[in-house]
């Protein structure tokens, strides 16, 4: 797979959809393409976060550690961007990501990410937009959950 294909993959990611192709190419060139085998972990809950990953091909499970072992809480697939929270706000990894099949990723190190955002503010704005959307999404789901709980309590 050459860098041109990676740029194509990046274009399909909402976070980078509005960014100039030449910037995406620089990001692809500066990042490491990393292939995980089925069952390999991208990172583990509680680790210090040093990089985010863009999934170019393949599927991954998101799991959290519980007393009964790992619990899969979500799935990620092609064109998803994972692990950005830990590099944005310096918290330990909040979940474990495991490759479900052979998984091709672009590893964006913290340094690279901040360099890109700093040099290309349009990227920063885009990151903000995506995070805000996620927050909005999370909030509405929280509201739903509260309502559901209240209904459950009322009944």
């Amino acid at each position, binding site marked *: *797979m*050459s*860098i*041109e294909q*990676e740029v194509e993959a990046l274009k399909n990611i909402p976070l980078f959809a509005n960014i100039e192709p*030449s910037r995406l*190419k*620089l990001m*692809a*060139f*500066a990042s*490491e*393409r*990393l*292939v*995980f*085998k089925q069952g*390999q972990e*991208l990172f583990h809950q509680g680790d210090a976060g040093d990089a985010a990953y863009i999934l170019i091909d393949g599927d991954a499970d998101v799991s959290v550690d519980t007393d009964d072992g790992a619990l899969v809480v979500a799935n990620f697939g092609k064109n998803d961007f994972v692990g950005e929270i830990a590099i944005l706000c310096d918290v330990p990894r909040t979940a474990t990501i495991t490759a479900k099949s052979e998984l091709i990723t672009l590893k964006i190190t913290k*340094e690279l990410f901040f*360099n890109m955002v700093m*040099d290309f503010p349009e990227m920063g704005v885009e990151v903000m937009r995506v995070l805000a959307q996620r927050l909005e999404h999370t909030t509405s789901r929280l509201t739903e959950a509260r309502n559901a709980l209240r209904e459950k309590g009322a009944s």
Partner: protein
Amino acid sequence: MEPELFKYIWRHSRKDQIGILILVLISMPFYFLSLDLPKSIINKAVSSEVFSDPAATLPFMQFELPYGEAIFGHPVTLFEGFMLTQLPLLLALCLSFLSLVLINGVFKFVINTLKGRLGERMLRRLRYELTDRILRFPVLHSRKIKQAEIATMIKDEVEPLGGFIGDAFVTPVFLGGQALTAMIFIMVQSWWLGLVAMSIVLVQAFLIPRLRKRILTLGRQRQMTARALAGRVAELVEGAIEIQSHDTTNYERAEISSRLGKIFSIRYEIYQRKFFVKFLNNLLAQVTPFIFYLGGGYLVITGQFEIGTLVAVLAAYKDLPPPVKDLINWDQQRNDVQIKYEQVAEQFQPHGLILSEMQQAEKERGDPLTGKVEISNLSLVDENENRLLDTINVSFGVGQNVAIVGNAGSGKEYLGLMLANLVQPSNGSVKIGGKPLVKLPSAITGRRLSYVGQDAYLFPLSVRDNLFYGLRNWMLNDNTAEPIDPKEIERERSEALRTGNTVLSPNGEWIDYKVAGIADQTQLISRVVDVLQKVDLEEDVYRFGLSGTVDAEYRPEIAESILGARIALKEHLKVIGAEDLVIAFDPESYNKNATLRENLLFGTPRKNDYAGDNLLSMPILREAVQKAELREPILNMGVSIARTMVELFTGLPPTHPFFEQFSFISADDLPDFDKIVKRVDKSGLSDLTEADRQALMYLPFDYVEARHRLGLVTEEVERKTLAARVILAEKLVTKDPDAVEFYDPDRFNSAASLQDNILFGRLAYGRAEAAETIGRVITELLDELGLRSDVIEVGLDYNVGVGGKRLSGVQRQKLAMARSLIKNPDLLIFNEAAAVLDSQSQNRLIPAVIQSQGDRGLVWTLQRAELAAHFDQVFVMQNGRIVESGAYSELSTKGKVLKSLIAAE
């Protein structure tokens, strides 16, 4: 040290000085004869009127007493000579002139050589003595001096002494004799004129030294300022980080400039005064003939003096100024070196210099230390009257393990230093087994005791040499590695003895392995591994070993084992399904995980000409690339890379870190390549200049397809690269067979590291955790094959760099501790030796060291009081006193100082 240079010279070289003097005296008559002879050749053999008669003869080798006629009124003939006719006389005189020239030449040669040898010998002695003193400096003094200054003294400041010493006695005697002869001669002629000449000389002798006094003071200042300059320059180098990070370069420039200004004015004043003295000297010398002409002329006119006598006096006076002038010059030189000597000597007599008897070379280690360490009334006061230690009274068994704790200013560091006999007490004493430590020779304190401070020094040698450094106490055997002529050895020996140097050879066998508990070489590695494990350094040395190289010729067994590991690794990776992590070097294929350069050379360069970018300028490579028709493909790769770089990096600020990290082209060169790319886009490759082509062709050599992913390594590039590889190898084998060690699946590569040899390929890019997995697998494999100790053995050859700078601070301390542990000391003193280690590591280290010392003693001054829990006995210090002592369990209770120290951490 002798305070006066002349006493020093006389004491150590009187025999040689007298010998040279005698030789000079013997040479004198020949010298005077050779001066006289040319006159005889002209006057007698060539133009003498006697020879108008061809049968006439004149005496040859007739010898008259010099000044005989003037003194006795008639010539005094000592030898009548042979009577010869004109031509034979000419021949005889010329031949004797020739032989005199020869004789004088030989005399001069021999005398100068002797003087030179004498000077060099004295220089060697002096330098040795000064270095010997450095070795005996008390450590607190050593901390205060600037290394560069002390090095300048030994290297440069004493150097002129060597040149002077040969002339120290010969010159004044010789010149003085000459001057005296002329003086006496004048005196004999005329008492009064003699008195005049003498008084002028006396005025010179009185006045000049007084004028010189200031010059001497200036000379002293010149030396001091120059030395301080050397010290400052060394500081600029040592403090480079601080200077640049604080942007104080301009302040430093100003500081240096002011120093140079001061040095300039001192030197300039010296010149002014020197030449004034010279002027005065010349003037005085010319005043004498003036008086002679005036006074002598008057005496002749008034008939009190014969004209012949006046001429003779004037002729004799001609001989007086040159030796006087030379004497004055000699005196100036004497003053100069005398100052240098005194200045240097003064710096090398610090208070508390260790007596040389204490360090006398001794073969025996001395008796084991037993009994008790008794510290009584021990005090240490520094030069500012600060009480660093205040009447300390404690005792403990030599074999105990003891912790000393306290705050930074508690004085525990000094107590540690004093226990190791590195600092002498101002009052009181430290006794071990009833013997005062200060009276014990270094053969005991340096071998039975061992000390590690908190910033231990490592020598720029291998790990092994540093580890065994403490066992080099005495030359065990003088078996120098290379065979040398026994006569040569004897010569060097006698020369060393003559100049007061030691005759021990550093190339002999010094390391006393038995002390380390190593009875023969087979136990060496296991003992080393044992000690390295104690200080937690074994893993590090193992890593050094993996990145180290081994020459298969000298260590065939290691090479063989590593080759075995290479095969085993391949199989093992297959078994665990990870064979895709390593892309092996295959002579038949292009390795996309390696650079184009590596694919072309397909080997490890042995010569620097073939390493890095140097390779690209080698004609041999260019020929191979040309022949394989690879030029054009490389050029195309270059264009693609340039195009991508221009696209990606244009618009980034030139200082952006991406340039450094990712770009093939520096920010400065980017515009040039932009132009080249535009030109190519417009009119193709044909329009490029040769310089453009060169620039483009350099780009692809570091290109790794798997990493950079630009899709440039096409089937054509692969095929042609393989062809070029074969051509290059053939050329190299015939033209420069030692230049490159080629990759060969079945052979050990002596130029590559052990790790590269095992791997024999490149880690695949883009495989998650490839490096970690491979590292772990290799370690497991080497353990399984029993090769770990071999790797460690290679790691022991790792050079630690100047001051150990190639190791981390923690590694340095660990190696220093291992260096002390391996000596099996009766009493080991660690003076905050592990302070750079984190608590967890210290908690592991301390029990390991205690266990290693067994029933031998250990005193450890700790930075963290809590760690005292590991020790039998604890001393707590405050303000230079011991305030608590006892077992940790007793002292770590409420209300105790130790408890509060622990709580404060």
